[in-house]
């Protein structure tokens, strides 16, 4: 069976447009709202979904996602709870790829094999683990392979030609290019600086390349969508949650409205192909 990730990127390639990837934190600000947001994401224009699972010490996260994880943990979210949320989403959507993103220790605690089987049964398609570089990833990769889940690798501005093959070993689905050195939500990605990196990674991997960590606005998302296969936005969406809470507004509506504006920018980014 073709994976949901491969199918989605193939379909978008046929349309000649980049994917818009929405990152949300599972359980932020609470389970019910997070589920509402999740269910609304595809219609609002998210082509793929990255579902953050909270960790107490997210060392590559800036304040927005740190706080989102704290809100989710405070509301009682667990890794098991994240998979339940995913499974509930899957009941109404069998095509949008769902990628978990987080840190290693909750997975170590569960046990890689049991976790991978449970994740697969919940309709998870891919996994990104920020603090598990390829050198440490084999036991996890074995468990994910057995469960048909893609281990999505991160390439960064510090990944030189010598290191790139190490990073790409045993990867599938797509490659995530961290476009800035820094934590999430801090610096802004420069499309022109990103262009050669994306081309290099695409050539070396034969996989679609998603770009994230430095995209907050529709303008930036549009610019990145011209050079990459996918634009990922996380901190800016999570900030909408925080702001809605602060102003006592409808959290779901606020997040989905932001998703619509970002997704629109990604969809309009490339000039339609001329008829052959």
């Amino acid at each position, binding site marked *: 069976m073709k994976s949901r990730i491969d199918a989605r990127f193939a379909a978008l390639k046929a349309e000649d447009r980049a994917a818009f990837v929405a990152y949300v934190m599972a359980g932020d600000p609470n389970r019910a709202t997070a589920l509402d947001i999740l269910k609304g994401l595809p219609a609002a224009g998210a082509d793929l979904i990255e579902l953050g699972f909270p960790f107490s*010490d997210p060392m590559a996260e800036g304040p927005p996602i740190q706080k989102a994880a704290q809100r989710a943990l405070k509301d009682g979210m667990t890794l098991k709870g994240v998979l339940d949320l995913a499974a509930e989403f899957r009941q109404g959507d069998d095509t949008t790829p769902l990628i978990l993103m987080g840190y290693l220790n909750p997975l*170590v605690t569960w046990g890689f094999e049991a976790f991978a089987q449970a994740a697969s049964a919940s309709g998870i398609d891919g996994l990104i683990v920020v603090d598990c570089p390829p050198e440490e990833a084999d036991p996890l990769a074995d468990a994910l392979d057995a469960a048909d889940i893609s281990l999505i690798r991160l390439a960064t501005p510090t990944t030189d030609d010598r290191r790139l093959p190490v990073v790409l070993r045993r990867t599938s689905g797509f490659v995530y290019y961290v476009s800035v050195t820094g934590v999430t939500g801090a*610096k802004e990605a420069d499309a022109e600086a990103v262009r050669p990196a994306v081309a290099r990674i695409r050539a070396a991997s034969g996989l679609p390349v998603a770009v994230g960590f430095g995209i907050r606005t529709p303008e930036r998302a549009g610019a990145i969508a011209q050079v990459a296969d996918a634009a990922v936005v996380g901190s800016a969406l999570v900030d909408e949650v925080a702001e809605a809470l602060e102003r006592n507004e409808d959290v779901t509506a606020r997040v989905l409205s932001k998703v619509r504006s970002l997704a629109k920018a990604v969809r309009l980014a490339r000039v339609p192909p001329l008829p052959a």
Partner: protein
Amino acid sequence: MNAPTHPQAPPATPNDFAAYPDANGRFGQFGGRYVAETLMPLVLDLEAAYLATKEDAAFQAELNGLLTHYVGRPSPLYFAERLTDHFGGAKIYFKREDLNHTGAHKINNCIGQILLARKMGKTRIIAETGAGQHGVATATVCARFGLPCVVYMGAVDVARQRPNVFRMNLLGAEVTPVTSGASTLKDAMNEALRDWVTNVEDTYYLIGSAAGPHPYPMMVRDFQAIMGREIREQILEAEGRLPDAVVACVGGGSNAIGTFHPFLNDEQVRIIGVEAAGDGMGTDRHAAAINGGRPGVLHGNKTYLLQDAEGQITEAHSISAGLDYPGIGPEHSWLHDVGRAQYLTCTDTEALDAFKLCAELEGIIPALESAHAIARLSDIARDVGKGGVVVMNLSGRGDKDVATVADHLGRTI
């Protein structure tokens, strides 16, 4: 394949402890390099640069010169006669790291790493600190070599270690209070890692304990092992034999591993670390990763950690800011698992009593961290017995702690 938390077989005791870590930075199942991909090339570079210094005679000469003339090494090995009499067991010796420049063992590691940072062409230094001793030592070497220095320190620790914050400022360092999490050492380390991942070109992360991703646990151990080597020489001179036991308090584990490492292959020497038990091991307010935690991954390495059933890291609690950390260096986790070292605990109250006892009997005000090791000496000296010899690493002096202690005694100063 099983997740690596479930070792297939009980680990066999290695016959050469000096051969660890392996090429992947592993001590058995512990250690490794669990960092964000952005940092991977940096830790690999660091490892190569560090290994090159071992063959670099000029580097070693400069290191030794500074340790002698700037730090004041070798530190004395002192026979604590009145404590020995008081406990009525084995002879007790203190390795006097409290007499070092800046008042603790932390400077040994900082001298080594600042020379390495210079050699690597780095122009900005960052560090995390708990008690502030490592922050002060880092600020000191940065002043000495004219490098800008940013120290991350939990806001709670900033409040309870005021004198050290001021010392760092005097030395020209910028102290950045960290308010995430419990605002203590763990959170300061998160923030330092976030700085490093942001400033990859020019910045050197000077980690203060034998923790973090490989090569830090190995490198910090090596720079601190000068203490254990000196103890070996000094005790042979004083007693004509090796000690029966070496004892040290364990936060991240640098003063302990530096003391222990040169003795690991001497089977007859008992190796004893003391973890902080805070309010007590029966409570959830302690900082004893080995005695009260289980293996997991945090801050770049696999090691024993305080964590809940879900793998969320829990807050550590100790009266001593330098021990207030939910993890422990990976080599200690391994020494525990293979049975080469023993890890005891000591509560806040016991540490305070030992603090006072040491001041009154020996005229030495120890760091609260070191007081945790002193507190266990009574049992250890009795266990080893008369005619035996115990060496304890007095890792630092207690000037920084007098306000905390006064507070606990209900006194105002």
